[in-house]
């Protein structure tokens, strides 16, 4: 029989001894892999659902969108001729007002033509008899989302005012097939027919209205062909074209980003579990010393010993990994079954190969990386061990070949984490952080042991001295306990502080500085009266009003925007239409980092003030040019100023500001922000929207509340995964305690013989665990605080706040865990009878 064949035979025979020694091993792998598989499968299921429903979400095969004005009749004719069918839709924000009591709400107004929807079905949960959208006796029929009906106490038949139009609620929307999926929703849907939009009088020059044209293709045509023909027919359009592959890019990016974060946290759980795996394998092999030595005495080569136990360990790893992967793979089905009806995103529950194979690979590589060390050491068990009592576990490193194997496996693990991420830079930072944490906790453990030894040399209370001695004696599991518990706690502290800082930012700091309202679609003819009305509101301050219109960057210098490579996270600036403005003077508090603002009376060729990070992302600077398509016309401006913008303040800011002289001649509207005391908000809202039905008001607090809700959802998911990491850490702690149990029993028995009371022994053991817990918690708190600071300041670019309560709670959790486990172990040890042990000794 060959070496591997004989090793397999011996491994199978060794398994007859049962898998009792592998319970913690299996549990650690199972949990860690299950998290990664679940997160990956769920992300894929959501992205898969978005792809499955893409045609429905998009509203057709192709979607053409233009802002401010409809496409030309020639363009519309072309679409109708080349496509199988076309549906016309107009979307904009508006205010819906109850004429009876004046209550009002921001709505997402949608006017749809007769052919809508081309794909899917618009369904109502309730409706009045007759046509929902017809204009009858000057009253526009409308369907509303249930949330609007709830907010304004609407029943079927109730009346609303939208712009200048009288609107009757004739139906409640159950399902709108092409409702855009987004992370944050600002206003419920109010849908009318195309005939009703004119009644509203909301379509003014420069209004922020989106004109959508959904097209289905003729049989035999393809998206690529259609787009090519469209581009050939209209080479310089101002519209944006999307097809099925881009049905919901923002939510996809959002899901992928959250998925990446949760996967990385899950990977931390698996790595913490890896420590448990290493401990379990080490403990198992320590118990096999006699068997290994016997084999060697009988003539087994050391390599055979290694192969035998490697196969056994990897067989266990496969069981744990497969089990975890199977459980994780069921996540999409479970989520769809229990939450499918209330989730805002579609889920295509299925088994997704890539995340499942990834989780398998993660599990196997982790098991291998953490098992090679004890396997390598077991290989070196001398046959002479049969003749000599092994007083203390063998120390020392395994051979360099095994160290190299550990290094290679670890590199593969890191590589898998980085390559599989959509933000590889973030994943690389995470990997670096984990490696750093491992080293840091190893050093911290050694420091704790050295400190325990140093303090223990003093004349102390005997219980304390025993506790300290147990921390640094040969074979003490201090190192692995500090590492496993410390990593889990670090993740908990980091996530808790990040959540606390985000909440602090959104719920407390932002509202202090943010305006009370954004008013949009203010016509140029209305500005003077608008300003007067707002300024008359008691307590108002900080009124800022800026002209605005939408445009899209089509060229950067001479390069078309679709060929520009962006760096970092700055692709957004080329993605879609952007808000543009013009100004003679820099905005109040503008932070100019390069260049010089133009003179107030400047009237030369267009100049641009550009946001500095976006400029860096595009690789442009002072003197470079941007060409923007505005209302079908291309405008090229030279970058004269780079400015840093603090987007988090929610103040009125634009990434692109033109010098006056060109855009002011185009049809445009104004946008304004103002701060008023909360008691005046309703009054101002009513005053403005009553006087100017075309102006839409966005209450900032509503937006912050919506953002908070989303953050809470993300935080809950993060907390769940983090607690799982902590659970794995606790398992490892319990495993280390179990592994040391016999020694603890022996210590307890000998101490009893020497006259120690049970209280003496229990105090010593509990002190030991308490010191271990406190030391670990302090290091974890320090690392977690540093990590949360770095993420908040450098990634989120926000101000970091220290939250002592959060850190204290985490330290307490650690103490409770270690003392609880210590108490359980002590109770068992004290319960053992002395006689049997003394007789055998």
């Amino acid at each position: 029989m060959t070496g591997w064949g004989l090793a397999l035979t011996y491994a199978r025979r060794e398994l007859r001894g049962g898998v009792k020694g592998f319970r913690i091993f299996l549990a650690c792998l199972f949990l860690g892999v299950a998290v990664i598989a679940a997160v990956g499968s769920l992300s894929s299921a959501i992205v898969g659902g978005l792809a499955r429903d893409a045609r429905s979400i998009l509203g057709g095969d192709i979607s053409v969108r233009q802002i401010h004005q409809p496409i030309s009749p020639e363009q519309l004719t072309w679409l109708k001729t080349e496509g199988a069918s076309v549906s016309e839709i107009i979307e904009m924000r508006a205010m819906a007002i109850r004429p009876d009591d004046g209550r009002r709400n921001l709505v997402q107004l949608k006017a749809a033509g007769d052919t809508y929807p081309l794909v899917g079905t618009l369904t109502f949960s309730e409706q009045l008899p007759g046509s929902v959208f017809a204009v009858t006796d000057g009253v526009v029929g409308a369907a509303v989302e249930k949330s609007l009906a709830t907010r304004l106490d609407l029943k079927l038949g109730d009346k609303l005012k939208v712009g200048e139009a009288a609107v009757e609620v004739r139906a409640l929307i159950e399902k709108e097939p092409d409702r855009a999926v987004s992370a944050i929703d600002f206003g419920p849907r109010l849908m009318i027919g195309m005939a009703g939009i004119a009644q509203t009088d909301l379509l003014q020059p420069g209004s922020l209205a989106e004109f959508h044209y959904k097209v289905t293709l003729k049989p035999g045509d393809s998206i690529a062909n259609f787009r090519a023909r469209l581009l050939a027919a209209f080479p310089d359009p101002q519209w944006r074209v999307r097809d099925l592959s881009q049905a919901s890019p923002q939510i996809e990016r959002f899901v992928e980003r959250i998925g990446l974060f949760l996967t990385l946290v899950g990977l931390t759980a698996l790595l913490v579990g890896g420590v448990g795996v290493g401990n379990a394998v080490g403990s198992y092999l320590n118990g096999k010393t006699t068997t290994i030595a016997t084999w060697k005495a009988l003539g087994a080569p050391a390599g055979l010993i290694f192969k035998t136990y490697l196969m056994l360990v990897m067989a266990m790893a496969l069981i744990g990994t497969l089990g975890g992967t199977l459980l994780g793979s069921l996540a999409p089905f479970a989520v769809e079954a229990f939450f499918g009806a209330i989730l805002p995103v579609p889920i295509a529950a299925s088994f997704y190969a890539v995340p499942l194979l990834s989780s398998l690979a993660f599990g196997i590589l982790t098991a291998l990386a953490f098992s090679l060390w004890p396997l390598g050491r077991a290989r070196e068990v001398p046959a002479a061990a049969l003749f000599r009592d092994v007083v203390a576990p063998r120390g020392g490193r395994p051979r360099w070949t095994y160290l190299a194997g550990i290094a290679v496996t670890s590199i593969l693990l890191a590589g898998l984490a980085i390559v599989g991420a959509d933000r590889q830079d973030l994943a690389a930072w995470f990997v670096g952080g984990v490696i750093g944490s491992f080293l840091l906790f190893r050093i911290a453990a050694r420091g704790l042991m050295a400190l325990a030894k140093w303090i223990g040399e003093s004349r102390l209370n005997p219980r304390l001295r025993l506790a300290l001695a147990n921390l640094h004696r040969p074979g003490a599991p201090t190192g692995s306990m500090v590492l496993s518990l410390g990593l889990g706690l670090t993740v908990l502290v980091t996530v808790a502080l990040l959540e606390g800082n985000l909440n602090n930012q959104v719920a407390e700091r932002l509202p202090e500085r943010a305006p009370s309202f954004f008013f949009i679609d203010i016509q140029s003819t209305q500005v003077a009266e608008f300003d007067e009305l707002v300024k008359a509101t008691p307590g108002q301050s900080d009124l800022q009003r800026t002209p605005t219109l939408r445009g899209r960057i089509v060229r950067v210098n001479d390069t078309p925007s679709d060929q520009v490579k962006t760096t970092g996270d700055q692709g957004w600036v080329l993605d879609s239409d952007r808000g543009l403005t013009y100004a003679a003077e820099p905005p109040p508090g503008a932070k100019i980092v390069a260049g010089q603002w133009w003179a107030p009376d400047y009237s030369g060729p267009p100049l641009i003030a550009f946001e500095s990070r976006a400029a860096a992302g595009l690789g442009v600077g002072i003197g470079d040019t941007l060409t923007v398509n505005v209302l079908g016309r291309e405008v090229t401006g030279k970058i004269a100023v780079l400015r840093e913008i603090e987007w988090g303040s929610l103040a009125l800011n634009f990434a692109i500001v033109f010098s006056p002289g060109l855009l002011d001649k185009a049809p445009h509207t104004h946008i304004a922000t103002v701060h008023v005391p909360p008691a005046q908000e309703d009054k101002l809202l009513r005053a403005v929207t009553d006087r100017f039905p075309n102006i839409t008001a966005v209450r900032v607090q509503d937006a912050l509340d919506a953002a908070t809700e989303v953050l809470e959802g993300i935080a809950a998911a993060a907390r769940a995964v983090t607690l799982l990491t902590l659970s794995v850490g606790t398992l490892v702690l319990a495993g280390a305690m179990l592994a040391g149990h016999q020694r603890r029993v022996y210590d307890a028995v000998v101490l009893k013989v020497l006259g120690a009371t049970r209280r003496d022994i229990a105090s010593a053991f509990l002190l030991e665990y308490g010191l271990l817990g406190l030391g670990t918690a302090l290091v974890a708190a320090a690392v977690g605080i540093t990590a949360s600071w770095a993420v908040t300041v450098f990634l989120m670019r926000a101000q970091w706040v220290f939250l002592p309560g959060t850190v204290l709670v985490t330290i307490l959790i650690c103490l409770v865990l270690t003392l609880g486990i210590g108490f359980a172990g002590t109770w068992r040890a004290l319960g053992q009878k002395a006689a049997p042990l003394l007789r055998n000794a």
Partner: protein
Amino acid sequence: MIELRNVHVKLASAAGEVNILRGIDLSVGAGESVGVVGPSGAGKSTMMMVIGGLERASSGSVTVAGADLTGLNEDKLALWRRDAVGIVFQAFRLVPTMTALENVAVPLELAGRRDAFERAAVALQDVGLGHRLDHYPEQLSGGEQQRVALARAFVIRPKLLIADEPTGNLDGTTGKQIIELMFKMKEEAGTTLLLITHDPALAQRCDRVVRIADGQLSALGAAA
């Protein structure tokens, strides 16, 4: 068969270097039986380990069954041991997850013998355990376990048998039975025997008795 010349063994310990064997000279002929006696800690086990290739001599020459052990690396020693040496321990040292048959077959499996299990079955019958082939060590009495160990040691027809207190964990009657069996098998195979024992009567059964004390060897002469 065995030639030790000025063998020293020094081992490192936490308290510094310890001289375990201090200039051992020993010659044993093929087929001879030698009893090794001495107080605890004298170096008996260490000398046996040097002869069995389980411990390296710090200096001196060690030739056993025609092989110069000082020039062999760990794996070569293991292979040599597989084919030439049988060892019987006080604590039996059977692999707990293997049956009696599988335990006896191990040296033959290691050697790649296709008839490993057939020969192991014969070896177990020879020691009177033909009806216990599929029993695990925990299902066997102490005496039965030691018989399995004897079968395992002799299944390769070793040139040398090392027995370290083989009756130390057995009662008197069982111990006698094991000793009779061991000597019988030794004679049948023509094996050289080194027997560590605290039992003077047992030592006297050997052709010769040597005494180790404080790391040095002294011969007590031929057994009466």
